[in-house]
């Protein structure tokens, strides 16, 4: 299992090399579930949310919204059920952190769910996991079963009187089911398509009930905050973005893999110090900081601290922390082709701009890459991306437009090179 253990660990992944940690007894032997028990016995739901807000934990699913604030939106009148949803639909290309968190620390996730479940009064958590994650689903189901048999979950959680169950739901395979309302539709057995908002899930979510959706990693941080305190948590990372995160590094590096590092760690430090630098001594060309929907950064911009407040200044964002590294052999138009093909495939097809724009962008990029593009096509491409931004039901169209806009912004000369040469200047680059 060694290959699935992060190269650099911190509190989240500290015990991930230990197979015993994945079992209930091994987890408890390291003090697991003690924090949840203590919180459930000693604190009120308001205390818990207050602590979370002070900790400033930002959601790790891509949007970076403050988790405590999100939980505070849940109505507390207690009329009828409310739900938590753990978003384990990890499907952003370049992102593979949640898989490891589920495979190597399933009970850490369950403990992380129990605390906000108690704080929001949710009796059930739906753990929605992407269908392709068969192994994590098996491991999690076993952990849920073991925890239920041991009274960690069920009608009397850890002997505290709080009742909670976790229902594992396997998705049927769509990127858009990672969007929280698309996920809710899929959870309800419908086609995964984002809902119009308002109403937001905290008002009407799963099965018409108040619901909060959080990413796997977001939950995993929670027990540590309560175990060691807000001050400790805020001492890691940056002022605005405290704590660590799991950077998944892939692409042209010597040591691809997961790295648990404080938020604010510089991108070039991640690439060169932790991931061993660019493969075979080649030159770095560009990197995507947080999964393919985040705008690419060219080599000259990689001294940026990896936290949203800094990345924003560079026109990008942390996303899911999936760092994709590209060396000098990479054709950036081909990169655009690959990314746009993904979004063309995955657009749910509801909104006109997204449905038609993703396809149009892909066809344009493909034509430019193959050498039959014109200067005017570049303008059209830019214009189409602009029309898709901020005009649709969910943020998918933005996620599809941003990478194309960033490629044009930073690598326009390379696009022009294709147009003028009427062919790809880097034909040895990867196959598309």
């Amino acid at each position, binding site marked *: 299992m060694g290959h699935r253990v992060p190269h650099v660990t911190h509190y989240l992944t500290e015990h991930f090399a230990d197979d015993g940690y994945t079992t209930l007894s091994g987890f408890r032997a390291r003090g697991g579930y003690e924090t949840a028990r203590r919180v459930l016995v000693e604190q009120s739901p308001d205390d818990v949310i207050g602590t979370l807000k002070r900790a400033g934990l930002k959601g790790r699913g891509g949007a970076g919204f403050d988790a405590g604030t999100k939980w505070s939106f849940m109505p507390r009148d207690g009329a009828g059920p409310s739900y938590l949803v753990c978003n384990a639909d990890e499907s952003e290309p370049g992102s593979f952190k949640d898989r490891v968190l589920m495979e190597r620390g399933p009970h850490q996730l369950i403990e992380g769910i129990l605390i906000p479940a108690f704080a929001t009064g949710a009796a059930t958590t739906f753990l929605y996991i992407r269908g392709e994650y068969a192994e994590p689903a098996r491991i999690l189901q076993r952990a849920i079963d073991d925890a239920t048999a041991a009274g960690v979950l069920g009608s009397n959680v850890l002997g505290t009187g709080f009742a909670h169950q976790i229902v594992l739901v396997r998705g049927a395979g769509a990127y858009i089911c990672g969007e929280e309302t698309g996920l809710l539709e899929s959870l309800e057995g419908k*086609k995964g398509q984002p809902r*119009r908002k308002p109403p937001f899930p905290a008002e009407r979510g799963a099965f018409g009930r108040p619901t909060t959706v959080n990413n796997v990693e977001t939950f995993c941080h929670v027990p540590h905050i309560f175990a060691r305190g807000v001050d400790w948590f805020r001492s890691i990372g940056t002022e605005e973005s405290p704590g660590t995160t799991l950077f998944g590094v892939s692409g042209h590096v010597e040591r691809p893999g997961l790295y648990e590092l404080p938020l604010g760690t510089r991108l070039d430090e991640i690439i060169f110090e932790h991931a061993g630098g660019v493969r075979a001594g080649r030159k770095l060309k560009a990197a995507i900081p947080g999964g393919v929907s985040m705008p690419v950064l060219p080599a000259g911009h990689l001294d940026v601290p990896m936290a949203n407040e800094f990345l924003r200044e560079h026109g990008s964002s942390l996303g899911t922390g999936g760092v994709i590294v590209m060396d000098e052999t990479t054709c950036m138009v081909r990169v655009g082709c690959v990314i746009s093909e993904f979004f063309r495939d995955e657009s749910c097809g*509801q909104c*006109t*701009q997204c449905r*038609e724009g993703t396809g149009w962008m892909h066809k344009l990029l493909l*034509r430019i890459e193959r050498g039959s593009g014109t200067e005017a096509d570049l303008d*059209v491409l830019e214009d189409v991306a602009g029309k898709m931004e901020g*005009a649709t039901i969910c943020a998918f169209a933005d996620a599809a437009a941003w990478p194309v806009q960033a490629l044009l912004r930073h690598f326009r000369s390379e696009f022009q090179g294709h147009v003028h040469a009427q062919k790809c200047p880097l034909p040895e680059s990867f196959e598309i």
Partner: protein
Amino acid sequence: MSAPGKLRDLMLRITIDGTRYEVEEGLTLLQALDELGVLMKGVDIPHYCWHPKLSVDGSCRMCQVEVEGIPKLQIACDTPVREGMVVHTRNERVLKARAGVMELMLVNHPLDCPICDQAGECKLQDYAFEYGQMHTRTREPRRALKKRVDLGATIVFDQERCILCRRCVRFCREIPGTSELAITQRGDRSTVETFPGKPLENDYSMNVADICPVGALTTRDFRFKVRVWFLEEVPGICTGCSRGCNVHVGVADDQVRRYTPRRNDDVNDTWLCDSGRMTYQEIGAPDRIREAALRGDSGELIGATIDQAIDRAARLVREAVEKEGPGVVAALASGHATNEDLAALRGLLAALGSETHGLPIVTGAGDALLVRPEKAANAEGARAAGFGEPGLLLDKIRGGGVRVLIVLGHDIIHEQFLGSPEPLAALDAVILLDTHRSRLEQVADVVIPARHLAEKGGTVTNFEGRIQAVPAALEPAFEAVAEAHVLARIASALDLSIDDGSEHEREAD
């Protein structure tokens, strides 16, 4: 639509393009404009997926408007009205966004308007002309899909033309509740499909063609029959049942080519059942009575002019009255006749001094949506005119107390009543005013071709007592006379003066 005296709902003041409106709280912008009657009639907010009678979808993004104080453009279909709201629907930013949506909408749309049956009543054409751009910027191949898919027995689907507004999908889910249609696939491969082995099959299926804003869904019945710009659309009433659904009677070359629903929120919203819709075919049907006829000495019906038929009818009535008194003349009214026809019949009987009459109304299945059990558009109007169940009249006929019977329509020989014309054979005379041929002719002495509602206009009263007036939509292809006129001329031949039914026309809404 608040009734007078009803406490008014809370009204909000909003400003749209500089004009102030008072609108009801709780509505969206498009709903509010629709209620005010100004949507696309003064305030043009183009829309595809929104439909006044379906749930909000919010996906076509065509109805974007600028709301002061909100940075992003908002979709008017899903933006609730708020007090003091200031909306711009025609500024540069909005028009640019519309043009953008139009361009994307057309990226994959086949520009096959010349061979598309929707051309002329296509929202894609209309809005492209108004908000789009003249030249295409796309050189990419358009998506190639199936051009002719039978979704069911009534509807043909062109996948390439579909703009995925999902009105049809929501219609099937929300109105008949049958949910046959769904969008399968994702992105620009999305298409409308039925579940294998579960075709689009409900009595409202053809409405999906009406609400399809483009040429994707067409009815097998109407497609390629006539270009819509050759159609004259005349307001009419469906005659299939006592609901009295409002329709547009589509006429070309003196033939009715289709019924499409005409919006009336108090009667049929914007819908029409398939069985009612297809009743237009009765108008030009081959079994129309096209010629007057008289029973000859040999016992055969022989063709005659309408004048001859009216003369004979008057003579038969006069002879019976002179011989046995007015009580032996009786009439069978019809729920298919207009209030004017029925008033004339009532008038003739009154002038003759006869009290003997009946009203056979054929009943069938109804549903919870539109279809009423009574299969006659003016059943309620006939009852209101004083015509009741035919039982007593039939008893009197069987007892020999009737000698001459004036019959409107042939519902009396339906199995729910006589089942056959036999019991009427013993009468001295049967005077038949009817639109369509039937076995009743076997016992008729006089047959006079009558006009269909679409050929004569007039008022009919629906099951709720709503009196609705429609004009004549076309002239019949042969000589036929409205029942009211036939009856008035018979009365005149008998030197009687009767009510011509005009008072009903004044009452109608």
